[in-house]
């Protein structure tokens, strides 16, 4: 077997960069023959004609150089086809679908979050959120979910549309509904959703999917919220960052940022 012409260590790359690198390899294979092969930690392109392979290698080098500062991550990888994904999401055991974590403030537990599992492709997240909410409303499924800690405020991940019209909180007074930031792209709809949630007794929060979101959103211009949740900040929070709303840091939080969060009285996810 000839040696591979291109080898990309995708497992060590951030998800979007890995996706683009795979796409470049696929394109080279389509143009110059050969095939893309997944190994334990990398994607390899072999048997490709030199021209397309060289072009792909150049583009991948530019991609990796350009995306040097983007974080890495691991997540559940759903299958490819729509029907297969639908079946996968429906069959995912509730124990795997849901993750319970605790947020501390200072040293004390202050909040708990019941969230869907992390996904390699966020498009399925809405479906998992809906399944999780349905499970909470079902006496049978409730037992399969992680056991909530009594006395701790509950935060639940919601689909973008929030609660179905007319839905009730079922005794969730004081609980926090966590909406995706994408809901803010249509402020009018978001305002409706927030009003419905509050009328049903929920507090409301927005979930920023990563520190890159801070470079894209004017936080001070968001509608009034009870909490902002920032996923995976690592250490990538600007020194002068001053959130206009109470802040919770989730996922990967670096040690220096944990120390700063303690000073600022921000919530920090302890473990998931």
């Amino acid at each position, binding site marked *: 077997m000839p040696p591979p012409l291109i080898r990309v260590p995708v497992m060590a790359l951030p998800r979007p960069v890995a996706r683009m690198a795979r796409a470049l390899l696929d394109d080279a294979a389509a143009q110059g023959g050969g095939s893309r092969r997944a190994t334990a930690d990398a994607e390899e392109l072999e048997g490709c004609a030199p021209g397309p392979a060289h072009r792909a290698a150049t583009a991948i080098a530019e991609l990796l150089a350009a995306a040097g500062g983007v974080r890495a991550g691991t997540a559940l990888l759903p299958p490819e086809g729509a029907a297969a994904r639908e079946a996968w999401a429906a069959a995912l055991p509730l124990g795997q679908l849901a993750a319970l974590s605790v947020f501390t403030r200072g040293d004390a537990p202050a909040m708990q979050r019941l969230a869907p599992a992390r996904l390699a492709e966020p498009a399925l997240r809405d479906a998992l959120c809906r399944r999780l909410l349905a499970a909470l409303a079902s006496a049978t499924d409730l037992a399969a979910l992680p056991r909530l800690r009594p006395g701790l405020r509950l935060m639940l991940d919601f689909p973008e549309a929030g609660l179905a019209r007319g839905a009730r909180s079922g005794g969730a007074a004081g609980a926090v509904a966590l909406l995706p930031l994408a809901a803010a792209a249509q402020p009018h709809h978001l305002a409706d959703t927030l009003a419905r949630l509050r009328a049903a007794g929920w507090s409301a929060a927005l979930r920023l*999917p990563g520190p890159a979101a801070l470079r894209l959103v004017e936080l001070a211009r968001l509608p009034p919220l009870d909490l902002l949740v920032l996923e995976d900040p690592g250490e990538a929070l600007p020194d002068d960052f001053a959130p206009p709303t109470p802040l919770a840091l989730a996922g990967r939080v670096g040690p220096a940022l944990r120390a700063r969060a303690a000073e600022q009285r921000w919530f920090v996810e302890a473990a998931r």
Partner: protein
Amino acid sequence: MIHGAPASPAAATQDALALAALARDCAASGSERRALVLHLSRLPEELREPRHQRQLREALTPILRPTRARLYELPGGDVVAVSRPPGEHLDDARATLRRLMPDVPADTVFPELRLPAQSAALLATVEAALGFAAAAPAAELPPEEVGAPPPGRELDAAERALASADISSFLRVSGLWRFAAAGATPERVRNESRVHLRDLAAVLLPGFSLAASAEARTRFRAAAERRLLAEFARPPGPLRPGAPGLSLPLGLAAATSPEFHRLEATLGAEGRKRLLVCLDPAEVFADPDGVAALAAFARSRGWSLGLDDVDPEALPLLRHGGFAMLRLRFRPALLSAPVAARAALDAALPADRGRLLLTGADCASAVGWAWQRGVSLFQGRMVEPRSV
């Protein structure tokens, strides 16, 4: 009506066109005027009898005589009095009207407008009088009905069909135009190609609604756009020498697909400089890391990244400095937005107005609204037919 018999239809149309020209000139030059709009057609039936008209005439004639204000009588019976500032006599006229008709909501029936700030609202009044406002919404697509989402197997079948389908009849090609001043000829600065998803879904997923499932919509859109990109990557390609650049509104999935990489490799360095890819703000918010990676890649490869279909209310939320182009969606509600909302939107507009393009520019009031803000790039029926 104010000074005698109602104007003839031809004279009223002439007046309307003259008033529209005045509004545009004020927007372009910054000249100040005050306008009192008398929506006499909105008066309740019981106030439209001849004796009421007579009373109105007697009350307003001394105040609005031609030396003090220019009167424009519009088709349909409405009247607009325009005066240079300070124009206190317009306040007197309004006070008289309030006295005569205390039960009539003056803000709605006798609004006062200040030009150039409210030129667009005045243009909207003229368009309504000329019947354009009634015609414009009829051409808009009705909102998509939210039915059942397509099941996975149907979606898989549609994706398989799209992999080899000829989707040229579902492609919408339009222009992005520079239109800087009334009387100027719009200049086509880019071509835009977009797959009409709703029509395509009606054929491939009949009876199902993409609006009911964000995931289904994203997948279907990606499959359709990847098909388009595959076609574009074949010779002769979408760019001709000397032709305008290309704008491609794409989902993030298509913009990171092998087909897109093939296209941008095919374009070469010179072609990539003429390529603009625009993403939906919702996708930008949903996957900021993905967008950051794509933006860095775009910079390294020499093509531009923009934002598509930005809701005006969302613009103040966006830190848009990293995007080469913002395509702002026009809404008639912009013309009557509260002062605070207007100020917030104006403050959020990019300082370099060359980065801003108004979509949905289907009426003169949209163009007038944009001109007031120094925007001269448009997409819509108001500019499109002029040069095609």
